[in-house]
Structure formats: structure tokens, C-alpha cells
């Protein structure tokens, strides 16, 4: 094509120099406009290229923004503290019998131990006693579960009573954020006072502060305290919900697709089903949530917030996807296979289940995995059926109250504490990695089956 244009230019150049420019032939007009047209072409290509680059940039910005926000959540600062388990602070009697003593340890005053140990460590600068405000601020440096750490430590080894012990404790989330991000003191949203910063500097110089990998993010459940919150509960909820979804949507979806492709007569009923499936695939997910609330919870009386209900709602939502993908896979099975089996005397049902279905399986499984990936990221319908509650216990069955990972992300994103920002991003990273794993599995499975 470029050659043609070049030829046109060559031809048009000769007459242009000889004849008058008042009357131009078509060829001349074309030649004159060529430069402009080529510029337009270039501009058009450039715009297209920029659109593609823009798309890339969006992906890169999104992923890198979330990753950079998530990184602080994967480690956590701990502080080494010398704690003195004095029995009068604990208000236990160490001279009684062993059983009474152990019982007393359960209800002893560990907060006082922590506080007094702290006050000993940080005498006020002018040698006087700490003011009440200072005391409160000092205590606030530590996570709310610090006293339980002390308790567990003493219960495991009761011989430590009346002795001074070195214990690693979690710092409060605000302190943790301060140490990680080095924000100026007094910035909005970060509640660290000058005095607290001074103490922290002292602790750092004494090498008492250490940054560790945050295992509890994966082993703990949700908590109001960001430094204690983890995703285990949400992960279990997701697992249970997806289990129900897969258990229901896969057989139902495949059965529906088999009927429509292999058995359904061409009539109004079949048309109606097809129109319905296509429309359901495009209904907003929140409408399925309304259905779940009005029918599954209010009419059938299934428990709110349960993975069972969540799974049913997600099944209704993903079934059209699975049916459409399965139908495509079934349609792709060569008719010669069906005819050969029918010719050998197999019944229609035998042909379908022993020949067509195994042949179509790779495509069906890929479709099911895509459906599950869709269900994994879904949030809105689950908000409708009450899977949005604050749940501390890890769910163990499909009728327990539970939440799922996307809803956990939604809940944390709403929390005002600064440390939840990193937690939310980290939870998003976990969700995205799960989706990546699922999609890679689908691709690998498909290529493996196709080779056979």
C-alpha cells in the first residue's frame, strides 16, 4: 500500500511543476493532501498506542500503590521489657498450696505488674515521680493484649513469681506506625506525643525494639486493635462459602448445560430458559443479595451471616457463567463421537455421560474456575445477607456467623485507625494472590487436558 502512495507522489510531482496551479486534477489534490493525511495517520496511531500504554499504567499504578501500602503490615515492632512478677503487685499469695496458687494466677492483676515495671524503667527526667498523664501515655505505648502476654508467660512457668524476667511485648498500633513511617510528631491521625517519642528513642538506642515478621496477620482473627487483627477468620469464611458455592453451582450448572445442549427440544420453554440465563449473567450482583435477604433468609429462615446462605447466593450468581462456559465446551465436542456411540447402541444418556461429558470436561472446569474466581471477589450481595458483622471467632461450619475476605477488606477500609490502612492493603494482596493462583490453575489445567 505504501508503494502505491509513493507512486502517486512521483506521478503528481511532474505535472505540478509544469501546469498552472489554478486547475488541479484529482491526482494533484490527493498528492497535496497526502502530507496532512499521513500526519493524521501518525497521530491516530500515537493515540491508540497511548491508550494501550494508559491501560498498562493503570494496572501498574494500582498494583504498586496497593503493594507499597501493604508492605508495613507484614512486619511489626516488638519491645523487650524487664518485668518483675512481684506477688504483691499481682495480689496473689505465693505461700499457699499449689492448686490455689495456680487458680489465683488466672485472675491476678497483671496490668499493675506491667505498669509498675514500666514506671521503674522510666523515672521522670527530674527524678520526681511520673505525672498521671505521663503514666497513662507510657502505658499506652503497649498493645492492649500486653497484659495477657504477661499472664500466659507466668501461667506456663509459675516459678517466675517474684523474679525479674525479660519479655517481648507487642507495641500499640499507633506506635508501630510511627516507628515504621517516621512521621513528624503530632501529625493528624497519629497520636504520638513528644514524651512518647522520647521514650521510644530511648528504647531504640538501648536496642530493645525489634521488627519481626507479622505471623499473627495470618493466624489471628479480626480485632478492634489493628496490631492484633488478622485474616484467618475471613479466610476460613471465604473457604467455607466457596466450598458451598462450588458444591452447588458446579453440578447444577453442568446439569443445566447438558440439558440445554443435548436434550432440550427447540421450543418456547427452552428459549425462555436461554433468555433467562443470558439476562441473569448481566443482573447486578447486589440484586442477588436482595433475593437472598428476601427469600433465603426471610422466607426459608436460614441463618443470617452464614456461609451457607452466602454460598447459595453466590451459586445463583455464578451459575449463568458456568452454564454459558459449559455449553460452549459441550458444543465443541465433535458430533462424530456422539454418532459413533449412538451407532453402537448406547442410549442418549449413556452417550452424554460417558462420551460427551468427559470430552467437554476441560472447558467445563475452566468455566467453573472462572465462576469461582468471580465469586471469590464478590462483596455486595454478601453485605445484604449480613456477612458484614464484626466476627472474632473463626467459623468452623457452614452455619456459623462468618465474613469473607472481600468484606473484611471493606470493613477495614472503613476503620479510622491508621494501621488498618496497611492491613487492608495486605488483605487485598492476599486476595489478589488467591485470584492469581486460581487463574493460573485454570490455565494449567486447560493446557494439560488439551494435550491429552
Amino acid at each position, binding site marked *: 500500500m505504501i508503494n502505491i502512495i509513493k507512486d502517486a507522489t512521483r506521478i503528481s510531482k511532474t505535472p505540478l511543476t509544469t501546469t498552472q496551479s489554478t486547475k488541479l486534477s484529482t491526482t494533484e489534490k490527493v498528492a497535496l493532501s497526502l502530507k496532512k493525511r499521513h500526519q493524521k495517520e501518525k497521530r491516530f496511531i500515537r*493515540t*491508540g498506542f497511548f491508550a494501550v500504554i494508559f491501560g498498562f499504567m493503570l494496572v501498574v499504578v494500582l498494583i504498586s500503590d496497593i503493594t507499597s501500602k501493604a508492605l508495613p503490615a507484614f512486619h511489626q515492632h516488638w519491645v523487650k521489657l524487664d518485668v518483675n512478677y512481684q506477688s504483691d503487685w499481682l495480689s496473689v499469695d505465693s505461700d499457699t498450696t499449689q492448686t490455689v496458687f495456680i487458680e489465683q494466677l488466672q485472675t491476678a492483676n497483671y496490668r499493675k505488674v506491667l505498669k509498675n515495671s514500666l514506671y521503674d524503667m522510666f523515672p521522670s527526667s527530674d527524678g520526681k515521680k511520673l505525672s498521671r498523664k505521663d503514666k497513662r501515655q507510657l502505658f499506652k505505648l503497649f498493645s492492649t493484649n500486653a497484659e495477657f502476654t504477661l499472664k500466659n508467660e507466668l501461667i506456663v512457668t509459675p516459678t517466675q513469681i517474684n523474679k525479674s524476667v525479660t519479655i517481648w511485648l507487642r507495641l500499640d498500633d499507633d506506635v508501630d506506625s510511627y516507628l515504621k513511617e517516621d512521621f513528624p510528631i503530632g501529625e493528624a491521625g497519629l497520636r504520638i506525643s513528644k514524651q512518647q517519642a522520647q521514650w521510644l528513642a530511648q528504647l531504640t538506642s538501648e536496642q530493645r525494639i525489634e521488627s519481626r515478621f507479622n505471623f499473627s496477620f495470618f493466624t489471628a482473627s479480626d480485632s478492634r486493635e489493628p496490631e492484633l487483627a488478622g485474616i484467618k477468620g475471613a479466610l476460613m469464611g471465604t473457604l467455607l462459602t466457596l466450598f458451598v458455592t462450588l458444591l452447588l453451582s458446579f453440578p447444577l*450448572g453442568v446439569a443445566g448445560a447438558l440439558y440445554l445442549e443435548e436434550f432440550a427440544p427447540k421450543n418456547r420453554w427452552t428459549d425462555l430458559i436461554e433468555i433467562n440465563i443470558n439476562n441473569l449473567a448481566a443482573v447486578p450482583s447486589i440484586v442477588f443479595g436482595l433475593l437472598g435477604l428476601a427469600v433465603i433468609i426471610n422466607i426459608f429462615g436460614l441463618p443470617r451471616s452464614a456461609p451457607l446462605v452466602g454460598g447459595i447466593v453466590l451459586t445463583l450468581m455464578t451459575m449463568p457463567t458456568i452454564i454459558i462456559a459449559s455449553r460452549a465446551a459441550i458444543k465443541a465436542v465433535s458430533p462424530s463421537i456422539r454418532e459413533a456411540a449412538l451407532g453402537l447402541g448406547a442410549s442418549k444418556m449413556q452417550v452424554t455421560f460417558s462420551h460427551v461429558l468427559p470430552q467437554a470436561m476441560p472447558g467445563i472446569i475452566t468455566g467453573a474456575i472462572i465462576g469461582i474466581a468471580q465469586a471469590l471477589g464478590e462483596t455486595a450481595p454478601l453485605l445484604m445477607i449480613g456477612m458484614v458483622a464484626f466476627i472474632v471467632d473463626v467459623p468452623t461450619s457452614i452455619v456459623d456467623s462468618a465474613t469473607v475476605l*472481600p468484606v473484611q477488606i471493606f470493613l477495614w477500609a472503613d476503620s479510622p485507625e491508621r494501621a488498618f490502612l496497611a492491613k487492608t492493603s495486605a488483605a487485598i494482596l492476599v486476595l489478589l494472590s488467591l485470584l492469581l493462583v486460581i487463574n493460573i490453575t485454570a490455565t494449567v489445567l486447560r493446557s494439560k487436558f488439551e494435550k491429552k
Partner: protein
Amino acid sequence: MNSSLLFIALLSLTLFSYWYGLKRSIKVAGGTEHRKDLTCLPEQFGLLTAMVCGLPALITLLIFNSAEPFVIEQLLTATLPAKIKTLSSVDFGLYLNNIRSIASSETAQTLIKVIELPINIDVREQYQAALTLQTLNHQSTWLKTGLVLVIAVANVIMLVRKFNLTFKARQQSETIIHTLLVASSAIAILTTLGIIVSVLFESIHFFKSVPVTDFIFGTQWSPQTAMRSDQVGGSGSFGAIPLFAGTMLITFIAMLLAVPVGLMIAIYLSQYASTRLRAFAKPMLEVLAGIPTVVYGFFAALTVAPVIRNVGEHFGLSVASESALAAGLVMGTMIIPFVSSLSEDAISAVPQSLKEASLGMGATNSETVIKVLLPAALPGIVGAILLAISRAIGETMIVVMAAGMAANLTANPLDSVTTVTVQIVTLLTGDQEFDSPKTLAAFALGLMLFITTLGLNILALKVVQKYREQYD
């Protein structure tokens, strides 16, 4: 026996009956060496027995479980003293909940002991009711277990008695499977029906207290109603115009980003890009399509919105912290791959001859695209855009996290607006009684959403179908 245990028992019984049916058929034939005398394979006898054992019992279990709470509540209500029955529905619900929590936390012995104590008559009545509830629950569980197991076993026995050499086990089991297949495909219809009935029913309920015209044409949205007369609350006005306007504003912003970018990507990838770039760009865009919406919502609320506010303030504009612009732009990002892949399909469906004719006449590539390919693919592209709009209208998480709650009637993209989906979520999350106009309003909004998206989808399909007829 609780339901999950019963389910497992039923499952093992079904497996056992497969084996039993198989053995019985061989026995009917007169030993393994005579199995050829049967009209059907022994495995087919087994399959039929298993299905006859499991299916009716499972259906009974499901029906029983869904009816159980309702029936027990009715029976319990019948035993309650008359003055409790006259309580308002809210107080009565609380009373029942109280009884349920007592019944689930105490053992029967403790309850009997408490009842025998000389205590307040009201408290005694509650404990008495809790005891009744426990007895009812207990009886119902036994009834359920018995019923399900008896049905399973009786069906198997009745079937096995009919076994003979010419028994058509395969045909019978195939009929059952066929019915199951039909039922599975009918779930799609049941779902649609369920959506329509539930949403429509609650909406009609809502329109009894709020006139339809007030809902569709009202310009004031403040669903907070006072629960008691002495409480300070909103006026409880349900005019949905601000919500529709907000939805349209955000959708418009999203389309303003998604349509040009998506279309240009589609054109570049289908007409200009090298195979290598295509192989790289397509999965990259699919990543954009596969990211959960809650992630986009987080990105919009915590990254894009602050950036827009800072830039706006730099130029001296007042930008709301939950601006429509932020939500719209991020929603547009989400929809780009949707528009690009559907438009690419439409463009590549244009017959090659049209393109070649245009190029042969000396048109440049871009001229061919703009003057030949796009007009020819226009119905497909319009269909794609309609589907994208329907997606944007129904999208929930981005707007819940990044758009505001206040129903402002404005066209300023820097202002905060609210959308239909945001209001549905706000009205329905949290505990409130189900029958207040506030919760019912969510269903009316859901009805509007369903009708709109359904209409758009049907329209899109029609447009695309018409276009296909032209070239096939």
C-alpha cells in the same frame, strides 16, 4: 441427630443402597455367571436403588428444615399466655428471642428447677416457655430423623421387591436423571422469578405507604424516619430523583473515560499492534477486568480521591472528599477492558472485504478505521457501550466506598453525590426491622435497578442481533 449428621447418615445409606441394589439384581439373576440374563447391567440396578433411596429423603429433609422454624414458632405461640400474644410485633419478636436464648443456654434440668422456685410470675412464664420450646425442638428433631430414614429405607425395600429379570432399571434411572437435568436448567427461571417476586412484592408493600409518583419524581431523599414519636428524625421523604441523578453523573464520568480509551485500545490492538504486543496486552487488560470491585473501591477512596482533592485545592476549587469524579474515574478504569474486548469483537466481525476495498481505494489505515470499520461495527460498539453502562449502574462496591451518602441533586463532578446502589447497601446493612418503609425502600430501589439493567441488556442484545443479520 442434627441436620448435618442426618445428611451424612443419608449419604452413607445411599452408598449402601447402591451396593445392595447391585447385589440384589445379581441374586435375582441367579448368581454372577447368570448376570447376562438381566435386561440391564447390575450397576444400573444399583444406581436406580441409590437414587430412589437418596432423592425423596433429601427432598423431605429440605422441606422439613425450611418449614421447621415456622411451625415450631406457631406451636410455641399457641402455648403462651394471652397477654403476651397481644404484644406488638416488635415486642413479641424480642420476647421470642429472649425465650430462644434461654432455651439454648440452659439445660432442661436447670429450667425445671428454676420453674419450681418461688419467683416472679413473668420470669416463670418465660422459663416455662423455654422448656416448651426445648421439648418442641427435641420432638421435631426426632420426627425429622425418623421420617427421613423411614422414607429412605421404605423406598429401597419397595423397589427391590419389584426386581426381576426384565426389570428396566436403566430406563427408569434415565428418566430420573432427565428430570434432574430439566430441574437444574429451570433454576435459572426460578432465580429470575424469585428476584422479580421478592423485589416486586416488597416494593408494592413500600408503595402502599409512599406513593409511586412521590418516589419516582420526588427530589428530596432522606430515609431516616423517627422510630418513636418523641424522637428527632428526618422527615422520611423518599424522592429518588437525586439518587438517579447521582448514578447518572458517576456513570457518565465513567463512560467519558472508558469509551474513548477502550475504543482506542480495541482499534490499536486489532489493526496496528504486533502479535507480540497483543499477546502481552490482552492478559494485562484481563488483569484489570479480574480485580475485585472492593479493591477498586479502596483505591478510589484512599488514593484517587485525596489526589483529586489536592489538585483541586491547588487550583482553588472546593472538592468534596468523596467526589463523584473519583468514583467515576475509577469505575471507568474498571470498565475499560469490558468496552475494549467487546468493541474488538465487533470490529473484527466486520468482513475483511470492506477493509480491503477501502485500502485498495487508497485510504490510509486510520481513514479506513474511522470511515469504514467503525460505521460498520457501530451497532456492535453501541451494544458494548450499553452493556458497559448497565455494568456501571449496577456497580456497588466502588460507589459504596468512594461516593458519598448525602443525596445532593447536582451536576458538579467535584461534589459528593450518592447512587441507587449506595442507598440500597446503607438501608439494608445493620439491624433493623424488616417492615419499615426504610428497608422496603431498598427493595423499591432494587426494582428500579433491575428494570433498568434488564432493559439495557435487552436493548444491547437487540442492537447486536440486528447487526449480525446484515453480514451473515
